[in-house]
């Protein structure tokens, strides 16, 4: 008799549960040996997996996907290798609190089509470091390359002594089955990286979830900025893997007084400003009627996008820029587009520019990332206090800056927390510390201020907060 979907889910999760039971017996040294072996195997496969991903998905640039694989393995490994994730992880004799790390249990990880092999290896390394078995569900458009990344990691893990079934991959393609596994009561946590629907499904599953969805990254070039430097950095970021990183720039905002200089710099660096007629044509191929980006242009080059839109652009154009007058459904290119297309805004003054950034930020990108180019600390802080973003990267390409590990000291991560704005529990870059339960052994340390206060007066209705505050802070 054919196995039902429920039986299949039970079988996969039981295997993960047994792996979890075995894994929690490992000490830090055994765990680290496995992580090191997997990181090395993943790093050695960085080129073949990058080429495989581009061949299968038809998205991005293999040299850039290779760098993503390096970030996901080498940089992530370097950031977690010395982190304690097993047993006692800290002891403070003053507070009397000892922290103990415990694994979570089976983790269900969803990987995207845009960064398939790197995200898989990244999540595998974090899970192994924290002794959690991982079940990966790949995007159906990247099933083969993700499967290959998983195979390479699993074989290396087993050879280093990891438990059987500590890494599994489920067949892609069935949304119902993915949701069945996601909602299984024995899943400890869902690590979902992908589109809005997927992240919503993760949060609706009833299991704890870290779901990271779309962004819509505004970048403000202040008049205090070094404009050629800013433009060069933006191009580096937005053209990286043809714009497939969700932290890539989506809109550039400048003040009227600097508009001409910024425009000229973009043009000098081989970017092309679309005419209103060309904007209308690009909108049709880039954004669907539901105001989401078209999958057919994700990770595509300028040449391909221009061809699809039926426009002609100068040879060697790196980015298409669309000067828009507003934000929202009447301006389709103001939405997130994971391709080398940028919205461009000119605001009458400083405040209007920041207000535009806020509008863009709230158009589907709350909590994700934002960028600012400025050499005035007051402006940087004003912008940062007003923007709702987990990462506000300064004078830095947002793709690389938000991911961390290269341009700043953020933990390198391919899963970027977006806070409550993105329905996440954290705004941090997800790393090993998010995949452990920390138990606290709390030794007796009396709060003498409270213990020595006259407890009776708390029962006296005539004693207001002034009296109680004074009593609490009294020198005994």
């Amino acid at each position, binding site marked *: 008799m054919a196995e039902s979907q429920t039986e299949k889910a039970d079988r996969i999760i039981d295997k993960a*549960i*047994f792996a979890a*039971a*075995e894994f*929690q*017996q490992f000490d830090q040294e055994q765990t680290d040996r496995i992580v090191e072996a997997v990181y090395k195997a993943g790093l050695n496969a960085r080129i073949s997996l990058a080429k495989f991903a581009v061949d299968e998905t038809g998205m991005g640039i293999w040299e850039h996907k290779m760098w993503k694989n390096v970030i996901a393995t080498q940089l992530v490994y370097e950031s977690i290798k010395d982190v304690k994730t097993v047993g006692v992880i800290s002891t403070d004799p003053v507070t009397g609190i000892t922290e103990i790390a415990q694994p979570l249990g089976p983790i269900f990880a969803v990987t995207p089509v845009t960064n398939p092999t790197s995200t898989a290896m990244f999540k595998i390394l974090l899970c192994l470091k924290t002794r959690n078995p991982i079940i990966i569900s790949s995007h159906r458009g990247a099933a083969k390359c993700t499967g290959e990344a998983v195979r390479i990691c699993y074989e290396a893990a087993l050879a280093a002594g990891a*438990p059987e*079934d500590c890494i599994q991959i489920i067949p892609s393609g069935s949304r119902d089955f993915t949701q069945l596994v996601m909602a299984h009561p024995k899943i400890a946590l869902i690590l979902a990286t992908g589109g809005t629907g997927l992240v919503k499904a993760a949060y609706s599953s009833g299991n704890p979830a870290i779901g990271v969805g779309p962004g819509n990254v505004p970048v403000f070039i202040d008049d205090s900025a070094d404009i050629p430097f800013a433009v060069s950095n933006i191009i580096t970021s937005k053209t990286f893997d043809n714009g497939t990183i969700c932290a890539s720039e989506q809109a550039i905002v400048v003040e009227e007084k600097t508009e001409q200089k910024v425009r000229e710099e973009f043009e000098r660096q081989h970017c092309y400003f679309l005419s209103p007629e060309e904007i209308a044509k690009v909108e049709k191929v880039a954004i669907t009627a539901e105001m989401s980006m078209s999958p057919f242009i994700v990770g595509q080059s300028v040449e391909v996008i221009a061809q699809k839109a039926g426009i002609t652009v100068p040879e060697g154009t790196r980015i298409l820029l669309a000067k828009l007058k507003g934000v929202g459904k009447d301006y389709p290119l103001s939405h997130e587009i994971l391709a080398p297309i940028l919205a461009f805004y000119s605001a009458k003054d400083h405040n209007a520019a920041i207000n535009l950034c806020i509008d863009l930020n709230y158009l589907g990108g709350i909590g994700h990332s934002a960028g600012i180019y400025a050499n005035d600390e007051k402006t940087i802080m004003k912008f940062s206090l007003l923007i709702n973003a987990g990462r506000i990267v300064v004078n830095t390409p947002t793709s690389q800056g938000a991911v961390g590990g290269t341009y700043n000291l953020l933990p390198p991560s391919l899963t970027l927390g977006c806070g409550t704005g993105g329905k996440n529990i954290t705004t941090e870059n997800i790393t090993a510390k998010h995949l452990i339960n920390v138990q606290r052994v709390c030794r007796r340390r009396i709060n003498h201020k409270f213990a020595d206060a006259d407890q009776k007066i708390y029962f006296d209705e005539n004693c207001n907060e002034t009296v109680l505050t004074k009593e609490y802070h009294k020198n005994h």
Partner: protein
Amino acid sequence: MLKFNYNKSEKALTCFFAGRLDTIASFNLCDELYAKLNTLRGTDDPAVMVNDKILFDMTEVNYIASSFIRICITVAKQVPRGNLTIVNCDPFLKKTFKIAGLDEILIVT
């Protein structure tokens, strides 16, 4: 690694395991264990239930792999519910069985 003691009056087979029951050790002992169960049931058909009580004594065990957990489940399916008991677990092992969810289908002490 594996020793047996059969108590005829109580119709109870105690299996004494020892050492580190990793994947290889579990693989090596399962044939011997299943052969013993076949002797008790009088046939090598695993669909025929073993009506004797089975005890897995874990006194000398310090580690179990997921393969050993699978062996426990296989044996649990071949005896009436409640007839397989895992005894003398170190708390470390008790927790391992707990995480694996085995206490839902057999007795772990």
